[in-house]
């Protein structure tokens, strides 16, 4: 009984995952991510991955909005900040003191409603207008949060602090165990968010989004309620953006105006382009590359390596070069490899797969395929030419 079950699971695994290189790679990556805490002894490195997970959720939500519904937003930090501030206000012991498993859902739903309100301009303006209008939203909100008359609520640039942690540290826990808990919570949320967004993107709704992206007028003519779907895109994206903000807030245990910073609006954009726009998995890869490159390679490994093997001590001002190096890589990628690293890799793997399929289907099909290819390439002679 059990053996047949296992056998069936195995055969289904072979059929659906093992045979497809792209899925196999994704599966291996997932396994790696799942077991990484056992390999890492240092909480700092774990923390990098935790933050990469948060950024990945955030970037995936941006990718969904821009890559799937075609509405360019350069102010995605607004969802991040709103989610963070709402959960902060609700869970702070100075205000409501609710437990976080209540406040986070409330916060993301509230952010969803705010996304609806912010989505209204997206119905009126599009293209660069929408991009620049959305860019201004977080700037407006950040200024309002610091506005003196509102200080007794939002505490100015100091923010709301003393919040409960994402994974509370119980008495028996070490800091490392807490980090492992945080890692798994963020990983599961990332997994859930990306699976949900992937499912939406590949459902009928996703198809509608793509049709709006391709030709809004034609979609309208087909009887699609473009207004509804555009707002829906904003809301879904805002929901997951806010989720990232909530996680970040409880990781840091405070919410303050830098959550609305422009760099936070740009980061998902850059990370998504690094991985591949409109792919869902691209931003995840991009976020991991960003954090590993920035916080591990350039901040930790490279100075150590240079110091121990070459004997050169990097000046602390080298920090300014980190963003430069990263942005330069992105810039070159956007120009030379517009599909992004992850998309490029899977496309290559997809090519491999196609060739193999033909191989296995037997020589007969292969031959006819070759013939077909030949005829299409030669074409028929034009009937008349001077």
């Amino acid at each position, binding site marked *: 009984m059990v053996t047949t079950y296992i056998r069936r699971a195995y055969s289904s695994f072979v059929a659906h995952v093992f045979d497809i290189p792209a899925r196999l790679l994704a599966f291996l990556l997932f396994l790696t991510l799942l077991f990484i805490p056992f390999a890492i002894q240092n909480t700092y490195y774990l923390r990098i991955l935790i933050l990469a997970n948060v950024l990945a959720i955030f970037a995936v939500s941006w990718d969904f909005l821009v890559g799937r519904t075609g509405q360019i937003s350069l102010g995605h930090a607004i969802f991040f900040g709103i989610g963070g501030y709402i959960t902060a206000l609700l869970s702070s012991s100075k205000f409501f003191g609710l437990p976080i498993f209540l406040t986070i859902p409330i916060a993301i739903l509230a952010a969803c409603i705010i996304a609806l309100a912010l989505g209204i301009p997206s119905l009126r303006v599009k293209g660069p207008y929408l991009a620049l209008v959305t860019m201004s939203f977080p700037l407006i909100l950040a200024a309002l949060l610091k506005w003196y008359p509102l200080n007794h609520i939002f505490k100015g640039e100091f923010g709301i602090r003393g919040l409960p942690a994402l994974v509370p540290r119980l008495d028996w826990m070490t800091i490392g165990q807490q980090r492992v808990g945080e890692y798994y919570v963020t990983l599961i949320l990332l997994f859930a968010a990306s699976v949900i967004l992937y499912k939406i993107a590949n459902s009928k709704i996703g198809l509608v989004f793509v049709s709006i992206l391709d030709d809004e007028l034609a979609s309208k003519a087909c009887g699609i309620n473009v207004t509804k779907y555009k707002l829906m895109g904003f809301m879904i994206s805002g929901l997951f953006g806010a989720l990232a903000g909530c996680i970040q807030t409880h990781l840091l245990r405070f919410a303050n105006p830098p959550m609305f910073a422009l760099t936070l609006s740009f980061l998902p954009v850059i990370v998504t382009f690094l991985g591949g726009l409109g792919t869902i998995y691209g931003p995840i890869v991009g976020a991991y590359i960003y954090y590993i490159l920035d916080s591990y390679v350039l901040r930790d490994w490279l100075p150590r390596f240079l110091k121990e093997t070459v004997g050169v001590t990097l000046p602390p001002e080298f920090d300014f070069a980190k963003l430069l190096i990263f942005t330069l890589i992105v810039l070159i990628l956007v120009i030379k490899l*517009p599909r992004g690293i992850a998309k490029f890799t899977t496309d290559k793997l997809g090519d491999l797969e196609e060739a193999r399929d033909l191989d296995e289907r037997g020589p007969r099909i292969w031959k006819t395929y070759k013939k077909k290819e030949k005829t299409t390439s030669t*074409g028929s*002679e*034009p*009937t*008349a*030419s*001077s």
Partner: protein
Amino acid sequence: MLEIKDLTVHYDGAMALNRVSLKVEEGEFVGVVGPNGSGKTTLLRAISGVLMEIEPGKKERPSLSGSIMFNGKGIDKSKAWNITKMGVIHCPERRRPFAEMTTLDNLRMGAYLRKNRSEIKKDLEWVYELFPILKERARQMSQTLSGGEQQMLAIGRALMSKPKLLLIDEPSLGLAPLLKEAVLKVIKEIWRSGVTILLVEQDVAITLASAQRIYILAHGRIATQGTKEELMKSRDVREIYLGL
């Protein structure tokens, strides 16, 4: 003067032109007719170079193979503005005047590459002579002109570039029958003044009436070609392609 060999154009997988070969001698008036979607406009855009001048970041980039020779020089790789400089002037489909410029400014833009002011002035007089209505509308924004006037403006603007070979794309589109004939009459007049003309039209009758030699384009291929008489001889051609 113009010689096209095996011109093939793909748009994102779809084939717009399939091994088209075509020749225009100096001083000829050649017509290309074909139904909607047969690739007429693509052909002219390929000749004038604008087809490949899609901005680099745009997703749907066409691919082009084959050769286009103008006066013995290959121009399929040239930039649109260099082709214009050689004297191949394309008068585009749907006229496309510069909407927020006056008629006069539009005509002046036609002479963008030319330096000799007195010649420009002479040509302007000539255009006014051909299309007297343009003189009346000289100070008017071109977007306020009627369809026929815009077509005249487009041809006039092309003439201001002093063309050696004039490519005209669907001048009769959306015009009343009377206007169509008037426009065609002017085109003939231009041809008589020594400009080689390649006219692309959907309206078979007026093309047959004016062009010396006609190519019939169908599904991106040259179906047949010949003078009016030659074409009218074949019953198939008459019935299938020309609908006469």
